[in-house]
């Protein structure tokens, strides 16, 4: 019973949504669901925060190796939460001074924007920037001309790398007009529009079918692994 009811909730909800796409009166069902989902996800943050607090408090109480870092995590979590929830240092919106919380957390000068600008942004965008290094080491290690497939991969990457900078202009810019299609910058666009389009289209079509089959497996109750295990 604990499995069958959820399964039916999924089946009914799913089919209702599918049909609603075809009924003009219910066309906004998807948007309504998106709203509901966002609210549920926002409230479920309580569960995530609980898990976060639990894992770090446990480390702390057991004095596990590196418990000091857990203090940092917990401390920064609580401080940020406090600042954000109570809009510390945020003035009310000049248009609506009567509403105490009408100001935006993002206003320049608020504690929140300080955290955002000087902590969150440098930390996350530097994490993102690490990719430039990983891309280089991956290219060195993985781009070896082992077989036809690998050669195609690496030659295409090569053309793109050159074609999308000034190097392409220097190397092939002198090609005569009738062969201008072979200039690296044009050739790279040609590859994008023909080969890349073909590959991406096939992937997209395949994914659409994969999504449909996965969805139907769930809606038909064939795949219940998301509910846990095979037998209902």
């Amino acid at each position, binding site marked *: 019973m604990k499995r069958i009811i959820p399964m039916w909730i999924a089946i009914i909800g799913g089919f209702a949504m599918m049909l609603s796409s075809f009924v003009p009166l219910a066309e906004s069902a998807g948007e309504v669901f998106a709203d509901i989902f966002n609210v549920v996800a926002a409230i479920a943050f309580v569960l995530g925060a609980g898990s976060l607090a639990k894992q770090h408090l446990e480390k702390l109480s057991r004095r596990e190796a590196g418990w000091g870092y857990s203090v940092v995590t917990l401390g920064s979590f609580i401080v940020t939460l406090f600042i954000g929830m109570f809009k510390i240092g945020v003035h009310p919106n000049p248009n609506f001074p009567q509403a105490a919380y009408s100001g935006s957390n993002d206003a320049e000068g608020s504690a929140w924007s300080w955290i955002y600008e000087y902590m969150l942004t440098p930390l996350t*965008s530097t994490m993102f920037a690490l990719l*430039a290094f990983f891309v280089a080491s991956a290219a060195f290690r993985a781009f070896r001309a082992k077989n036809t497939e690998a050669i195609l991969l*690496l030659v295409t990457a090569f053309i793109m790398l050159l074609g999308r900078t000034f190097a392409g202009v220097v190397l092939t810019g002198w090609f005569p007009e009738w062969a201008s299609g072979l200039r690296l910058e044009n050739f790279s666009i040609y590859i994008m529009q023909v080969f890349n389009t073909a590959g991406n289209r096939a992937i997209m079509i395949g994914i659409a079918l994969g999504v449909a089959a996965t969805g139907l497996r769930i809606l038909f109750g064939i795949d219940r692994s998301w509910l846990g295990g095979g037998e209902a």
Partner: protein
Amino acid sequence: MSAANFNNTNASALPWFERLDRIDRRWIFLLMFLAVSGPILWIGVTGKTLPEAPTLAARAVFQEIDQLPARSLVLISIDFDPTSAGELQPMATSLVRQCAAKNLRMVFIALWPLGSQVAQQTIQEVIRDDYPALKEGDDFVNMGFQAGNEAVMKLLLTDFAKAFPKDSRGEAASNIPILNSVKSVTDFPLLISVSAGYPGSKEWVQYVISAHNEKMNFVSGCTGVNAPQLYPYFPQQIAGLLGAIKGAAEYESMVNSSLAVEGVVTPPKYSQAQRRMGPQLVAHLFMVGLIIVGNINFFARKRRGAA
């Protein structure tokens, strides 16, 4: 300190290609750092940038905005956050600049939570600083962020004010003059999306543009990662496309030269992307070099292995 470390103890006993193959990747990291930071320093000190030859897709973006009559409405969707600002901020800046210079009326929206702040910064940097005559509410407005991804796009098709009920100042949509004639997103002759992923340009095409292509035009600026997925839509659904920092630099150079006034230096904030093409070039050449060295190495090992 062993995490990323490779075993180098017997390194000197191995032939060169074996040694190269087991090279500590931290050396590659260091070289990459130098390849990017060197040109930044050089360009930062000298102020010189590489010339740009705009490609078709970037020219189309310029044309689309250029052909609009003054006072046309433009919807600018900021679908990225500061983590992608390195690539996309120059596009957003130049796009807003061209729109402001053309005296178009701009409505900013954000489908990414942090996009609203990015829009605010862009407004400050371009409109308030350089086009102070433009009035918030009459000439431009930042409608802020709305959660819901493509659901918001669908809602925009039916009711703009419902999707974005208030602007970033807290003003209700019904009180904003610029939105008086706007019922749905199709009332905008041009939609601009500067996007770093989901939701972004691809979703705009899927949910809004493909069905209303004849009513509104769509131009997009996207990150390098997303460009391959968007090229298939150019030029049918996406009238103009700025792909990665290269697209940004091409577009920037076009806007700058079209708005250049003799004797006045273009503010350097409008050539961010062009400055970044220098590090781009050296780093690309470095990557190409890495791939070549890697393969020479591979063939040397293969030959030795076969012999």
